[in-house]
């Protein structure tokens, strides 16, 4: 038992205990739970959400995905929930995040390579900073499709820093998008920054 003192004289009538001055140590889970009524959102350190691309998109060149992006499967607000506008993905809480970028598509002609990147921006996409990347490859004549998955642990210290689903060096590539996670970015909040 970590509690060193609980109430005067170990009384069974423990109303009016001053937690600041009369209790030390760690508190166990009380009978019926130990939820707090204010000051915290109980049990909310972790959270997460996903941004899916909802329709197929042909891409060429270098850029970040800007359309057909929707947020799905979010936990409650205030827990690291994503919102997306013109491809700029913002989170509603700072913290350490595990970010997963799934990049799925095919080559529509020839032997093609493309690099997907998890990138951040603090100026609405005017410039981006690459954080993690991968290599995807497809050969059209072979009927190839690819799925490339990139992982990043990121310390988000300012919610003005946003994320983009970036790619580089695309040519004759179609990315797949549906009502499920096939091309997507997932944000899992691990804890406070």
């Amino acid at each position, binding site marked *: 038992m970590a509690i060193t003192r609980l109430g005067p004289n170990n009384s069974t009538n423990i109303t009016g205990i001053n937690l600041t001055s009369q209790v030390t140590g760690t508190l166990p889970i009380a009978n019926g739970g130990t939820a707090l009524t204010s000051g915290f959102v109980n049990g909310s350190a972790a959270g997460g959400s996903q941004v899916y691309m909802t*329709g*197929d*998109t*042909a*891409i*060429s*060149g*270098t*850029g970040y*995905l*800007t*359309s*057909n992006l929707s947020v799905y499967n979010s936990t409650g607000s205030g827990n690291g929930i994503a919102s997306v506008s013109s491809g700029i993905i913002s989170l509603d809480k700072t913290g350490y995040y595990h970010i997963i970028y799934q990049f799925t598509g*095919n080559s*529509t*002609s020839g032997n093609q390579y493309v690099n997907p990147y998890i990138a951040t921006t603090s100026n609405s996409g005017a410039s981006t900073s690459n954080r993690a990347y991968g290599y995807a490859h497809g050969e059209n004549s072979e009927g190839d499709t690819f799925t490339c998955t990139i992982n990043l642990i990121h310390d988000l210290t300012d919610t003005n820093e946003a994320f983009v689903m970036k790619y580089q060096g695309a*040519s*004759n*590539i*179609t990315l*797949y998008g549906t009502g499920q996670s096939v091309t997507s970015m997932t944000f899992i909040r691990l804890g406070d920054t």
Partner: protein
Amino acid sequence: MNENQRNLRYLNLALKELNPNAEYQATDIDNINWMNGTTPIPKEDIEAKIEELKGA
């Protein structure tokens, strides 16, 4: 490959033939986001090129 993906394949092929350096994102022929200073290609030119490719 579904019909939409086949259409996007022809769109990619047509755009590459019309401008090999074109940079874009497109969900269909009516929704092309020209990027990084790429000069937009008229829709009728794209449609004509797609028909040419389909007939080849």
